[in-house]
């Protein structure tokens, strides 16, 4: 019933979108209905972010917009003209893995691997949120300041609950994140 992008026959509603993706300026012409996820995967060939549920339920499409973790399947590419996007492909630096990537290997934080890029992108930004003192639903008293020493495994589990792993690798994922965050 709904036509694919290429078959759309109505007047051209496409928009020019320029985004700084993993540090490089990328420009594309996108239909408004193209999600950020589809733009990254199909237009910019960045297939790290995964299209799994496509409904904002699983977290496999997690990327960063201006440093904040978001679900790229639930937003439109054309709404992010002028913004900075980071995908898993942009995480390593000069051949050096990000500490979260290293710890996922160290702790065997994946089995099939399909959720892994989303898990890692989520964890990287989550640690920054915690450093900024953001509370979570696992925080006993939200009126008190939150510090990194409060980032227990229960906190990590709550803060990572937007990323599902159907292999159920959660204990290893939590261990990897906890080690990067300085918690053992």
């Amino acid at each position, binding site marked *: 019933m709904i036509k694919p992008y290429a078959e759309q026959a109505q007047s051209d509603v496409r928009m020019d979108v320029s985004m700084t993706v993993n540090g490089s300026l990328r420009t594309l012409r996108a239909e408004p*209905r193209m999600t950020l996820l589809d733009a990254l995967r199909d237009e910019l060939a960045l297939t790290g972010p995964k299209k799994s549920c496509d*409904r904002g339920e699983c977290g496999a499409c997690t990327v960063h917009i201006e440093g904040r973790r*978001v679900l790229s399947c639930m*937003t439109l590419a054309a*709404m992010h003209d002028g913004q900075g996007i980071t995908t898993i492909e942009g995480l390593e630096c000069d051949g050096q893995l990000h500490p979260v990537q290293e710890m996922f290997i160290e702790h065997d934080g994946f089995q099939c691997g399909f959720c892994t890029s989303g898990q890692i992108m989520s964890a990287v930004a989550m640690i920054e949120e915690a450093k900024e003192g953001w*509370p979570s639903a696992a925080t006993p008293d939200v009126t008190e300041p939150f510090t990194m020493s409060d980032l227990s495994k229960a906190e990590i589990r709550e803060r990572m609950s937007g990323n599902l792993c159907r292999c159920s690798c959660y204990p290893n994922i939590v261990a990897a994140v906890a080690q990067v965050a300085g918690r053992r």
Partner: protein
Amino acid sequence: MHPFALSRPTDISAAIAAHARDAHLAFIAGGTDLIGLMKDGVTLPERLLDINRLPDLAQIEALPDGGLRIGALARMSEVAADPHVRSRFPVIVESLLFAASGQLRNMATIGGNIMQRTRCPYFRDEDNLPCNKRRPGSGCSARFGLNRNHAIFGWSDDCVATHPSDLAVALAALDANVLVRGPGGKRSIPFTEFHLLPGNTPERDNVLERGDLMVAIEVPQRIEGRASHYLKLRDRQSYEFALVSTAAAVVADRRRIGSARIALGGVANKPWRLTAAESALRGVSLDDTDALMTAIAASFTEARPLAHNAFKIELAQRVALRALETAGARA
């Protein structure tokens, strides 16, 4: 998704005028509800107007009198992290943090959270089953269908859906105001009058008209604010909508309740204030569990369960009691 056009204006008057004259135009902000509705074919706007570039709609202001003004475009996570909101109204912070996931809270706005549509599975069904909220006059599949998650208060034969927002429950308990700008200028709507019960027009979730743009939420100074708590029960512990939730705020003198504010989520098509219970709670000791329970029960005489959700009547009273006791411990 179906094809549509997108505009991204920076002028608020132009945005309001466009919405007022075009019945096939929808505002989009965080998009986390609207894009899901479009993917499922529930709503098919021909034009979207991205309001993210409109100026001055995302601030979080601590008002000098002790209240708050939260811009409609403020993100859930920003509001939940704000030090003033945390110290003045913990119930607001908790209602936000118990909703959605970290990623969604970075995207979803305060305005969109309050405007989000029901999670009734018949409303969102990809096969477009009968639903009066989605297609007026088509019938209600939940009335005699699977209705474990549905309403026990204020429903009609045309619709038994519940409102999914956690934040709305907290704002109802605090008697916040919704600031709206429309073609005729600005107006303020008391929060408890913002959402509508289904009656025979379940397609209308709230009182906004075409051309109306929510610009902010104002929370008046509340002496009960600091002693407040949001408690949410759900089928899984995180990243799930409420079965039943309660926002409670209380002011007490030597453990005796001076005033209490209680609203329930997951039980009606709007946040459900326990007005009768609030009256009955005045003067009751926070340490007298039986008396607290009796006072709360005063609001449940009008509860009407459906085939699969009678459990919510007892569950809601217990959740209200525990939320009240936790809020009371902060008094």
